[in-house]
């Protein structure tokens, strides 16, 4: 004989609606997490790269003076490179401002020295400025990591916001599922009553609903996560193929943690659904003799 018909009838329209809501919530949660994580990773890579880079701006001197200043810097502790930017390099740097025609004659240009130090170097922007000033130059050195620190602060805020969004979405999902289970329970009160009066224990009846909603949560969560992954990939791919400078765009390199998020989300959705269903059913049963 074939498998017995489930005691709880197969899903109806109400469950399709719930499936959609849970999938959508999981989609948003995974999208928020993946984007925040991607942005964070990219920003960390960027700030690690600019760590140890600085630019020295000289005024009141000529190219020869700049070369002498550069060799002075090269003599400092931990400095791996100090080069005066050539006219071509300056033109490339300023092309966005002046266009491909080059820098018009007569525009006063500062002389710039690009400096790189080892990451643990004691030579800071301040010490470079001091050295040059005492040697009689009018110079200002700026460390690129100063910008990175600001970016990192902004990213910290972003991370807190992302966690908040995920928590909010999870709570919403649980509330929606509890509500939906309650509705399903009322709709199938005939079944619950008959089972109850036939001597079924609360555990038995609760399990029927728990199993149903666990599966629903799991499937909806998986659908939402996979869709979120696809959308994230699409965003990154289209941004990259548009040739944008992708350093600060979310980097989607499916690493271990992204994988964990994709696996954990459906399980969390399933567990949330299961717990909400079990709680609702038990609560309803306690109200009858």
């Amino acid at each position, binding site marked *: *004989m074939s498998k*017995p*018909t489930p*005691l709880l009838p197969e899903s109806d329209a109400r469950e399709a609606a719930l499936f959609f809501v849970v999938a959508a919530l999981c989609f948003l949660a995974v999208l928020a997490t993946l984007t925040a994580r991607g942005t964070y990773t990219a920003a960390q890579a960027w700030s690690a790269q600019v760590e140890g880079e600085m630019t020295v701006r000289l005024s009141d001197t000529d190219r020869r003076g700049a070369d002498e200043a550069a060799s002075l810097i090269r003599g400092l502790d931990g400095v791996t490179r100090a080069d005066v930017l050539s006219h071509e390099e300056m033109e490339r740097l300023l092309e966005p401002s002046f266009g491909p025609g080059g820098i018009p004659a007569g525009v006063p240009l500062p002389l710039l020295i690009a400096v790189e130090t080892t990451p643990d170097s004691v030579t800071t922007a301040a010490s470079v400025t001091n050295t040059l000033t005492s040697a009689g130059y009018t110079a200002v050195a700026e460390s690129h990591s100063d910008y990175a620190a600001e970016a990192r602060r902004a990213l910290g805020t972003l991370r807190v916001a992302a966690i908040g969004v995920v928590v909010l979405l999870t709570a919403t999902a649980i509330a929606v599922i509890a509500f939906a289970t309650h509705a399903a329970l009322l709709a199938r009160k*005939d079944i619950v009553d*008959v089972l*109850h*009066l*036939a*001597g079924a224990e609360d555990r038995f009846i609760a399990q029927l609903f728990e199993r149903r909603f666990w599966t629903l949560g799991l499937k909806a969560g998986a659908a939402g996560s996979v869709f979120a992954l696809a959308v994230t990939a699409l965003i990154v791919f289209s941004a990259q193929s548009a040739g944008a400078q992708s350093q600060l765009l979310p980097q989607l390199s499916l690493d271990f943690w992204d994988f964990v998020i994709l696996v954990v989300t459906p399980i969390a959705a399933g567990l949330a659904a299961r717990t909400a269903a079990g709680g609702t059913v038990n609560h309803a049963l306690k109200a009858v003799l």
Partner: protein
Amino acid sequence: MNRFRPDMTGEPAVELNGVSLRYDTADEVLSDLDIRLKPGSFTFLTGASGAGKSSLLKLLYLAHAPTHGEVRLFGLQTSALKRRQLSALRRRIGVVFQDFRLLDHLTAFENVALPLRVLGQKESDYRDEVVDLLRWVGLGERMHALPRSLSGGEQQRLAIARALINKPDLLIADEPTGNVDPEMGQRIFRLFVELNRRVGTTVIIATHDLALIREFDAPVLRLQHGLIVRDVEHQPA
């Protein structure tokens, strides 16, 4: 005092002491009832529509707790039982509901097997038993039909089969001939009598079918406005 105490020895199967029932804030539906039913007894419960028959039966099959008084089943005081013990007690009671309460997505076979699935039994274990019972109530050919495709009388007999599959110690039937013609009504009553005589099941049947009551030799509890007004003794034909 409304007291009905047949001669008896041993623990009553059903015992109500000073039982009253009130739904929400409405008037009392049952007032200060004292009832004792011996194990193996066969009792009719009668009274006009709205007299409280179904309400009294609900107390007996543990769907509702009384507002006052105590309900004892097989010597157990039900208000003192834990939820699991109540579930276990319900398994000793077979109920034929006035509105059947068949599950519309399950076949006739599966509806009858329901109380056994609740116990965690496998189909291979109960299959023959269920088939035999369905044949006994005359539904051997309709095993795979859904309830909505059955006639009123067939649904009634299906509900009876489901109430009996557990071999209950107490069978409670609420107007079990309400939806069938007199001939089928007689067949159903004979089924209950057979069960009572052969297996010793305690049977209580709510009905207002006086013709049928007259035909079967059993004591009658008459309810009127929530009171037991009389124990109609069997009139010899």
